[in-house]
């Protein structure tokens, strides 16, 4: 069964460093998303991406964040200068169309120290 894959599963980084989280969405899907979940809290939307551009973003997704689809299969989230409060599980998701079921990856646990 097709699935969304994310790497790495766990990333530890020092405050102020840049991190890149990687995702391979399901191959025939057109919409890609990043969500995050701080420990013990809700899953929160960060950004959606369609047709090689951001289609929607939340207030969390500030200038420190960027997304890219560098080739036909990968979808990345970059955090330019990490803060302690960026520590969370980051989930990539994809969907075939805008308002259809979204499939999530297993997440990258980001720990900022």
């Amino acid at each position: 069964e097709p699935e969304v894959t994310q790497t790495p599963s766990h990333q530890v980084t020092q405050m102020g460093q840049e991190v890149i989280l990687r995702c391979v969405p399901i191959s025939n899907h057109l919409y890609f998303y990043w969500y995050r979940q701080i420990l013990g809290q809700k899953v929160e939307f960060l950004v959606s991406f369609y047709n090689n551009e951001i289609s929607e973003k939340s207030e969390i997704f500030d200038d420190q964040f960027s997304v890219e689809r560098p080739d036909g299969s990968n979808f990345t989230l970059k955090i330019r200068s990490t803060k302690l409060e960026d520590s969370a599980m980051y989930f990539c998701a994809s969907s075939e169309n805008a308002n259809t079921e979204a499939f999530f990856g297993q997440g990258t646990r980001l720990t900022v120290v």
Partner: protein
Amino acid sequence: SQKIEQNSEALNIQEGKTATLTCNYTNYSPAYLQWYRQDPGRGPVFLLLIRENEKEKRKERLKVTFDTTLKQSLFHITASQPADSATYLCAQGDTGFQKLVFGTGTRLLVSP
């Protein structure tokens, strides 16, 4: 702003019984709701999507309802098993937007 609420207390039931989880929404009428299962340290796993013009959806032992008058969705697991123990998330979405707004989730514990 969109707000979606799930019972934050864990639901404990015995194996074989039907589990019923509640999702209430306020301030907004979503075009659809999605239900997910999440195990500790794992990503949400899609279960069912129900649209505002659908009253009920079923998939194997799962059933979800959508009551736009009560602003509520109910999620049922019949003949529950210990393997059904997990956190169940409700998320609302709307036409014209891609984001899902998630509830806090309800933890279900099914004891043998």
